[in-house]
């Protein structure tokens, strides 16, 4: 009993932090820096707690006697916890300057971020559909409000409107799917559903239909192509820290539940879904590439490209359905790779836009390499990683995904993925070209070392190290380390029947 409390420290720490921040919010003259530090403090505690439990091989329901089979603890969830917390810490620390230069931020911002994080962590832990839905809604409602946080700016509130409306439909579809499955199996607990679906005797049509609704909701949330209408606008309209939070952390959260469901419970629907997923992956990559190519604003370009990255991950999901052994760990590795690179890229954008009010476009980066040579180099590294250039972590991510696709016989999708990687070179290298090809008249700015820049440097180092070093450089966590982590996490999901 008591030792289980040990496992909820990270959850409780996040929740406690959120509540405390609520209390602190309305004091007169609230100091954003201090609130920021307080939230980071709680998050660091949570991160340590999560890391301590990593790789203990724990697998089991949390307080089953009291809570029932609702929350589950395994390495899969812990890995996602770690990523969410890290992503949130990055979001908070990298954007320190950004808060300071905008007057619309106040204490509730931190509380909402922490609530949202709490929802995401629950989502990774939940082993029951209704809990997952509520966790998803906790995360989503907070993020809706965060998107519209600059509420006196029409762009921001309009983005919130679009996201809220479409996101609600997505949520309701998830709920509807859960209810249909509940009707068919008599339970919403994932283990019971898995038992039902593996029994073999029952008519699985209702389960498949319910699962389809859930998967459509997932597609809604990750912005896969017929359901992508909101992505660009919302990313553009949201304040930079929120865009960063959504693109990196929130997107991964959806994959946490989607993977758990797809690998463990929805095995019978793999056959039904394969063709649909293939089509969707192809459409997502094509549509996302088209959107990304045609943008001028970098926020919108990154939003479009994030759709493309969802498309790559959909390829891997398809491969899981076709029985690939390596696809599941490939997708988790890709999530890590995408997470690191996109947090870095958004981090630099928000670092730059902290002191200017402009919408950042390609043209704004002309001469950037001379203004800020180190930032420019790191931006180039992140772009290379997103484009999948070798010696970065992004390349290995694509390598695993495409290898998995080839292993499962998805030759066309792998080819299309590589073709889209080729297209992505265009819009990522366009930025590198802007950074490096144009002279600059302004004087060079010194690189100041503060939390933002240090974290960005750290991320760049992870991108490069994760893409190369291994046995060559001793004592360095790197490419091998990441894929081992991913494999261990997937291994924790284990066989569907426990």
């Amino acid at each position: 009993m008591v030792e289980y409390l040990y496992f909820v420290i990270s959850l409780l720490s996040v929740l406690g932090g959120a509540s405390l921040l609520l209390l602190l919010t309305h004091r007169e003259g609230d100091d954003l820096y201090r609130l920021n530090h307080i939230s980071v403090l709680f998050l660091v505690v949570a991160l340590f707690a999560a890391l301590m439990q990593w790789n203990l091989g724990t697998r089991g329901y949390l307080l089953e006697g009291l809570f029932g089979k609702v929350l589950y603890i395994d390495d899969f969830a812990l890995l996602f916890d770690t990523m969410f917390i890290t992503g949130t810490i990055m979001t908070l620390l990298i954007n320190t300057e950004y808060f300071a230069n905008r007057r619309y931020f106040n204490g509730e911002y931190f509380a909402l971020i922490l609530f949202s994080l709490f929802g995401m962590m629950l989502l990774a832990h939940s082993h029951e559909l209704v809990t997952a839905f509520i966790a998803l809604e906790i995360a989503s409602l907070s993020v809706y409000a965060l998107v519209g946080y600059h509420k006196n700016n029409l762009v921001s509130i309009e983005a919130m409107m679009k996201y809220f409306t479409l996101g609600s439909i997505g949520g309701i579809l998830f709920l509807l799917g859960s209810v249909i499955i509940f009707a068919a199996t008599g339970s919403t607990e994932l283990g019971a559903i898995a038992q039902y679906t593996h029994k073999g005797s029952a008519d699985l049509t209702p389960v498949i239909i319910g699962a389809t609704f859930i998967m459509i909701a997932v597609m809604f949330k990750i912005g896969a192509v017929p359901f992508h209408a909101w992505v660009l606008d919302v990313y553009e309209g949201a304040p930079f820290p929120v865009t960063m939070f959504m693109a990196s952390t929130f997107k991964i959260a959806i994959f946490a539940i989607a993977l758990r469901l797809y690998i463990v419970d929805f095995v019978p629907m793999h056959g039904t879904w394969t063709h649909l997923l293939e089509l969707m992956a192809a459409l997502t990559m094509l549509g996302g590439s088209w959107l990304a190519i045609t943008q001028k604003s970098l926020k919108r370009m990154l939003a479009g490209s994030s759709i493309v990255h969802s498309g790559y991950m959909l390829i891997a999901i398809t491969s899981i359905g076709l029985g690939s052994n390596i696809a599941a760990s490939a997708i988790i590795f890709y999530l890590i790779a995408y997470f690191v690179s996109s947090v870095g890229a958004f981090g630099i954008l928000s670092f730059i836009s902290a002191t200017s009010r402009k919408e950042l476009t390609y043209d704004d980066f002309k001469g950037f390499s001379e203004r800020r040579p180190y930032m420019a180099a790191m931006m180039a590294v992140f772009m290379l990683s997103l484009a999948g250039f070798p010696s970065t972590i992004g390349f290995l991510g694509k390598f695993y995904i495409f290898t998995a696709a080839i292993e499962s016989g998805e030759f066309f999708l792998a080819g299309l993925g590589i073709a889209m990687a080729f297209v992505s070179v265009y819009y990522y290298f366009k930025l590198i070209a802007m950074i490096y090809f144009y002279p600059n008249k302004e004087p060079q700015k010194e690189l100041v070392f503060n939390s933002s820049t240090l974290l960005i440097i750290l991320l760049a180092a992870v991108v490069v190290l994760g893409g190369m070093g291994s046995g060559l450089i001793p004592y360095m966590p790197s490419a091998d380390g990441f894929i081992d982590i991913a494999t261990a996490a997937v291994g924790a999901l284990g066989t569907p029947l426990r």
Partner: protein
Amino acid sequence: MGQHLLSMIVFLPLFGALVMALGRSGLRLLRTGTLAISAVTTLLSFTLAFLFTADGSMQFVRKVPWISNYGITYYLGVDLISLVLLLVIAVLMPLLYLYMHEEKRKGFWYSMLLLQSGVSGVILSLDAILFYLFWEMMLLPVFLMIGRYGAGERSYNVMQLLLMTLLGSLTMLYAILYMGYRFYSISGHWSYAVEDLAKLRFESETDILLAAGFLLAFVIKIPLVGFHTWMAPAYGSAPTPAVVILSAVMAKLGVYGIWRFGFSLFGDTLTLYAPGIIALSLFGLLYYTLRAISQDGLREMFAFASGAHLSMITLGLLLANIYAWSGSLYFIATHAFSSAGMFLMLGLLYRRSGTFAISELGGIAQRAPKFAFFFIFFALSVAGLPGTGGFVSELLIIIGAFKSNLWIGVFAAMSMVAAVLYLFTMSRKVLFGESSEATERFDDLSPLETTILVPLVLLLLAMGIFPSLFMSIFDTQLSIMLDAFREGVA
């Protein structure tokens, strides 16, 4: 020492660049440091050549696991072909750094160091993924050098170069991934080492597709005719050192790729489709020669001349007999030196006159006799006149061509004659006749510039006059490789 030699050659420039960049070194330090680094790598390369024994095997092999879950290894090794290319780099890079002596833009120096690492890595790596890594890595500095320091429509031209080369390399990546997977499904463990992939046998259709995937990367890099649209614009807007590397080294890497991967992995398909590629090379020979004749810009002219010669090398490679192969390998080296020299001359010409247009030049010989001498020497060695290395290599390829087919030989010989003619005409127009506005004040070569050019001249002469020095080594090594290839096909 032995097993780290290759790693040092590859990574010394890269680490040097990193250290100097992070240490925010000043221009002077950067210049001295770069020269020192290149001197050391050159020394190492020659040590390597000295220790090398030509018995047809891979030497100085270094193979350690890199990404062990997927069997990707850090796998370097050197055989005769890579050694020749390595020595070419070892000779050229210090000269280029000397040529860049006046260069004030730091990024240029860093890019060159990065480029040196990249090309050395491509030459030495024997693991397909590692090869791909370096293959892409060497593109990046070229991208920066042309896009940032180039002239004319630089960003458009460099984007064209980037996208076309990446198109090829991504098809290659797909082929590599597929072969790795096939190896895994047969043997149960992952490996991307060349000799492991060479064990694979595919159904003929798959084999053709895979071979096409690899070849696309290589023919775009060479470039064979039809895949050449990036070439002239990129050569036109690149700064001189970048052009030298593009034509003297990077284009050869396409040929090297066919040698290393094409012959060892897809022997059957390559034999089957050799006539097609030979025809393409012959057509390229004709096409590039005609285009070269009609150019007014010197850069473009020599870009096309270079294209013609690379078509010739490819031709020799695919004829696959001992003469043609020796000729090709020899040509790789001689063409590198002569085209490097020629493009350096063009760079010096541009420094003085500010133009590349033949029609705006003339009368240089009276004002700058030394310059004129070097200019005409390199032009002739590009044309392949007797006494220079180019002659020997072209002769060998033509002999090889005659051995396999009379008409191919005749055609190749004809193109050689045509090259001599148009290069003569060009030199006459540029060096003699009325001096023009651009050449009013034309200084002769400075001592430093002469120092840069003399080694190339000596090398070309040596290779032209004493080919037997090299040929004996080539013969043993290449006949071993040729036998292995024929065995593989049979």
